[in-house]
């Protein structure tokens, strides 16, 4: 189950997208997410899909790999789709016993699930095309210009980067624990939901114990390497904007303008998207 999540897994190809300044990519993704909640019409969504497709193509990351990040979300997407479709009141298009699909419901379900898919794909392409270290560097740089959270910028970024560093380690460990518990006769596959949830306890308890021990040892090792917070710290790689970043920001501005404008155009198509 954990192996399918590509979020936070770097896929290096050395493409233009990979070489962009992490701040550019973070800002772009952030703006993209906001824009996804601004659009309310097919044209807007087409632009959103188009820009994402462009980024994926430029990143040279295989589409299958990007799509794999969606796998754990299929359930949620389908649920969103179904719930919105059947639960939204409005002009009834189709009815069977107590089930009905309204025009508004159809529109909402398509838009909501599309929004989810784009949101997750958009953020995973960022994490796929940005090394975890760059990502945290970018976040740190971004946060340290925001007055309220400036003080926490370094600490948060450090926590993030450590979390990213330990995701693979802890996943491996989870795998080992599952195998060890299975060898002791634990059963994770059968039983009802509650029984299965209970079966997770023998996995989670050793995992947490080990995570705490790791944290303790890591803290000691960091102090032994003279770590004392963000003050006076230098970086091996100092962030600097290049020409490609300027282009990216221009593209972002154009996309944003187009997506916002698409709200104010009245469309000729009647069904079901007006």
């Amino acid at each position, binding site marked *: 189950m954990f192996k399918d999540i590509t979020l936070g897994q770097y896929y290096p190809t050395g493409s233009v997208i990979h070489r962009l300044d992490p701040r550019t990519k973070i800002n772009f993704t952030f703006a993209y997410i906001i824009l996804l909640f601004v659009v309310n019409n097919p044209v807007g969504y087409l632009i959103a899909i188009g820009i994402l497709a462009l980024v994926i193509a430029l990143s040279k990351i295989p589409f299958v790999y990007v799509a794999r990040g969606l796998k754990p979300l299929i359930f949620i997407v389908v649920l969103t789709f179904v719930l919105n479709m059947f639960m939204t009141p409005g002009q009834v298009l189709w009815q069977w016993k107590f089930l009905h699909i309204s025009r508004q419901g159809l529109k909402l379900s398509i838009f909501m699930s599309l929004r989810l898919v784009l949101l997750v794909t958009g953020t995973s392409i960022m994490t796929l095309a940005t090394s975890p270290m760059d990502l945290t560097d970018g976040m740190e740089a971004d946060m340290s210009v925001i007055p309220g959270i400036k003080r926490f910028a370094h600490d948060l970024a450090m926590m993030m*980067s450590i979390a990213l560093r330990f995701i*693979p380690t802890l996943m491996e460990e989870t795998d080992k624990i599952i195998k060890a518990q299975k060898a002791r006769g634990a059963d994770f596959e059968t039983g009802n939901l509650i029984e299965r949830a209970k079966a997770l306890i023998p996995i989670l308890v050793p995992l947490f114990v080990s995570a705490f021990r790791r944290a303790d040892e890591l803290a000691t*090792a960091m102090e032994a*390497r003279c770590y004392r917070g963000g003050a006076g710290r230098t970086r091996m790689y100092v962030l600097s904007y290049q020409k490609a970043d300027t282009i990216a920001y221009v593209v972002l501005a154009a996309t944003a303008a187009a997506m916002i404008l698409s709200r104010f155009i009245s469309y000729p198509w009647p069904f079901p998207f007006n």
Partner: protein
Amino acid sequence: MNEQTAYIKHQSPSGEPIIRVENLSYAYPVEDENQEPKQALSDINLTVNPGEFVGIIGHNGSGKSTLSKILNGIIVPDSGDAWIEGMNTKDAEKIWDIRKTAGMVFQNPDNQLVSSVVETDVAFGMENLGVPSDKIKEKVTEVLDMVGMSDYRKARPHQLSGGQKQRIAIAGILAMKPDCIIFDEPTAMLDPNGRGEVMKTILDLNRNHGMTVLHITHYMSELVNADRIVVMDNGKIVAVGTPREIFSKVAMLKKIGLDVPQMTELAYLLRQDGYDLPQDILTIREMVEALCH
């Protein structure tokens, strides 16, 4: 010449030994008040001179890690003092200089790598010390070369073997230009291959780069090349000497629960059966020589 000075290879500029420990005692605080605090270390005296390779052995809980943590200023001793190049580890102002001078490599290779990329992990210590960017890059190249990991500069830690991770950890310490490295069982979690890699790296640093090494281990065989071995038991130093001197004290080592190298033990058993063999046989070759002459 007394036993201590016999092993001096280099002299530090100040004439100070790299590590000096005097009458050191420490007990971990206990939560339960009725419980008697157990002495983790009692009255330790130890001097390590520049360029030396000193090994520490002792069974589980004998206080080896506690000693290394005191030397790094992670734990403050209850009584007695530890000096790193003349800096007292109790001196809070000197703590970063102390940690920079006596770097530390720990047992678990995973739990000491901070960064998701090898090169930035190696750079971590230097970044903390405020070294400028271009100097960091140069040094990273240099130390990765020293531990033979140049090809893995952009690799991610979880793709590496245990031995490789440990060499990256060593590189990260080397980058801070220490005069001495304290190794706390760096090979304990590795397979024989990884153990070999790491030991080769440690010996190379000691022999060819003049690095002072304090090597804590459970494996006697790793200390055959040490200048001096310190045997700890129950928070005390029970013996100090050359590998030959230490390994020949088979009865004493066995009594405190330690193994001796196979050939030394064989010689010991044969001697008990009345064979006339020297006490300090370490290798198969020496055993063959002794038996056939």
